[in-house]
């Protein structure tokens, strides 16, 4: 079976180049590459929020926008996406690198 990523285009830093190509299957595959074998409802709450924010603003939300928008605490966010949630979440949600500083 072909990988869901075979037709996906990435930029030089490994972020999806075209966020309209994104599917939930792609997200699961990208998450595996980031070391997350299973995505729970809490992961999806964050990813779904990021997708929505991406549709509205055209770019990935910052961590503080994620905690503010989902009600998920900073501690839980870092627990769900350990070792660098900012880049990880943006990557899995098929968005570019987050542009804000907070």
């Amino acid at each position, binding site marked *: 079976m072909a990988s869901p990523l075979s037709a996906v285009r990435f930029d030089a830093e490994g972020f999806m180049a075209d966020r309209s190509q994104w599917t939930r299957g792609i997200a699961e595959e990208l998450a595996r590459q980031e070391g997350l074998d299973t995505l729970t409802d809490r992961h999806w709450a964050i990813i779904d929020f990021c997708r929505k924010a991406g549709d509205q603003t055209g770019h990935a939300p910052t961590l*503080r926008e994620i905690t503010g928008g989902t009600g998920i605490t*900073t*501690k839980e966010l870092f627990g769900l996406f350990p070792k*660098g949630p900012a*880049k990880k979440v943006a990557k899995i949600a098929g968005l570019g690198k*987050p542009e804000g500083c*907070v």
Partner: protein
Amino acid sequence: MATENRKIAFICSKGDLDMAYPALIMGWAALGNGIDVTIFFTFWGLDLVTKKRVDRLEIAPLANTSFKISMMGLPTGNLGIPSILGIIPGMTAFATWFMKKKMKALKVPPVREYIEMLHDGGAKMYGCKMTVDMFGIQKDDFLPQIDGVVTASDFMDMTEGAQIVFI
């Protein structure tokens, strides 16, 4: 990953409002990128992590050559705030209020909240033992997010292999 994680450490030695933010902003960015963060607060930097001081940090226009009238949106170019105005009572409070307003508009959290975010994101934060002894600061004076009080030598041990930024 088998490779050792990148580490960064900040030494915060200043308690002015403008000098509080660099380590907080960079530390938060580092955590977001999966880098281990340690912050050491020494001398005036302890103002950032003591309950009595953290919400009262200020920025003084007096003798600050970077302060320009144009920062308030007036087309005055490089015209500075004259030092004589800086000594008027209330100028420091005004500058502080103004900076806080600008930061809020950019959705930058206040220092107290930043310390909470850094702690929740996994940063380790310590007070400097010598300054704590000199200022007579008690454990209870610190924000609860502070991990302890350590000596300069402890800090060196903790930050082996880290990139160190002095502010």
